[in-house]
């Protein structure tokens, strides 16, 4: 068993959180509230040292770039939300974030989620020297994407041929959801194994 105080602290907090599997109890509530507090403190320091200091303080104070008074002003506007009478000033900062975020998203999503996906789907079904499995897989990918898109096309009723094609799309979507679910479960299981290994190896030293 280790004598490291940090490992003991981590083991205690891990067990506190696992105690929730029995039922909600004071140990879990303690760890839960401590986690929220520590997370808030972590993100506060992280943003201060990685965003506010290099992007605002250094540019404004060290380099004397006065155009950085605007982000400072908008940041203060954001904090004014704490005061109900002048809280509407925060809309200016929110508007900046929403506007520039929307402008960036139009370009990036159109490129990555739309054009790049079309480009990756519209490949040769039978490239030179390909095996029958590659032809089948490329065809499957193409059919899956097209039928999936038909399912999401709500401007036409899903009856007749459209309904049949959309039904094939549902099959692909169900496999997709099942696979994503299985993948998520395994990611959580691997985290659980990690915590168990920590308790049994790092803390107790029995494995």
């Amino acid at each position, binding site marked *: 068993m280790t004598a490291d105080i940090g*490992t003991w*602290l*981590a083991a205690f*907090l891990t067990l506190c959180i696992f105690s929730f*599997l029995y039922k909600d109890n004071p140990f879990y509530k*303690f760890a839960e*509230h*401590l*986690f929220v*507090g*520590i997370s*808030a*403190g972590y993100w*506060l320091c992280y*943003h*201060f*040292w990685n*965003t506010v200091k290099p992007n*605002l303080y250094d540019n404004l104070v060290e380099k004397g770039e006065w155009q950085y008074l605007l982000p*400072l002003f908008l940041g203060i506007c954001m*904090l004014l939300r*704490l005061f109900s009478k002048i809280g*509407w000033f925060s*809309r200016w900062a*929110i*508007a*900046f*974030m*929403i*506007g520039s975020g*929307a*402008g960036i998203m*139009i370009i990036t999503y159109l490129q990555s*989620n*739309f054009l790049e*996906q*079309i480009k990756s789907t519209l490949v040769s079904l039978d490239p030179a020297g390909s095996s029958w499995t590659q032809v089948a897989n490329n065809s499957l*990918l193409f*059919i*899956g*994407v097209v*039928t*999936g898109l038909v399912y*999401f096309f709500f401007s036409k009723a899903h009856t007749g041929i459209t309904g049949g094609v959309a039904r094939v*799309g549902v*099959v*692909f*979507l*169900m*496999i*997709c959801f*099942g*696979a994503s*679910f*299985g*993948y*998520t479960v395994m990611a*959580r299981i691997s*985290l*659980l194994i990690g915590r168990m290994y920590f308790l049994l190896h790092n803390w107790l030293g029995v494995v």
Partner: protein
Amino acid sequence: MRREIPLIITFVCGITMIIQFFIPHWPFSDVKSYFQHTYMIIAAFAMILGICNLTRLHIFKIRDRRENWGYSIVLLVGLAIMAIPGLFQGIHEGTMFEFLFKNAHVPMNSTMFSLLAFFVASASYRAFRARTFDAALLLIAGFAVMLGRAPIGDTLTSFMPEGWQMSDLANWIMAFPNTAGQRAIMMGSGLGIVATSLRVILGIERSYLGGE
């Protein structure tokens, strides 16, 4: 003033960010990095706002002796012991901040998420009951991926030829039917995001401004 100025800011910022993509030269190239810095700074202030609000809420809870107020003290102590050394000492190795990050934040974070394994297991019991053809597909795909990602999957299918074992099936599902479904969803969501962003920039969608 309360609605018009935010709408103008949104329009100008949105259009500027679109233009800078098509004209990546001065002054738009500089505007892009300036806007990105400004965005990050405001986001950091938004985080500070959230923490101020959290602190205020829990101070009021302690002051009014509301139910479970003792845990609010734990929360504020957690915030203080992380934030005070972090802001004054820095966040580099060997600081109190780093000690708490390694021995409190990381273990609690991964334990919280690992706890979900148990709840996901009970949820999958309900979701995976193969009552219909679609539910059966969901079950088979999920089961194959889970088995394929664990050593037991290949052990169970060790009699199968190379390339046809459970991990190969899981990889195939992830690479083809899953990718096809994901792409259809991504294309749909991509178009949706573009349409919504345009509505926001043009001032048609104003819900982010709130009431009044």
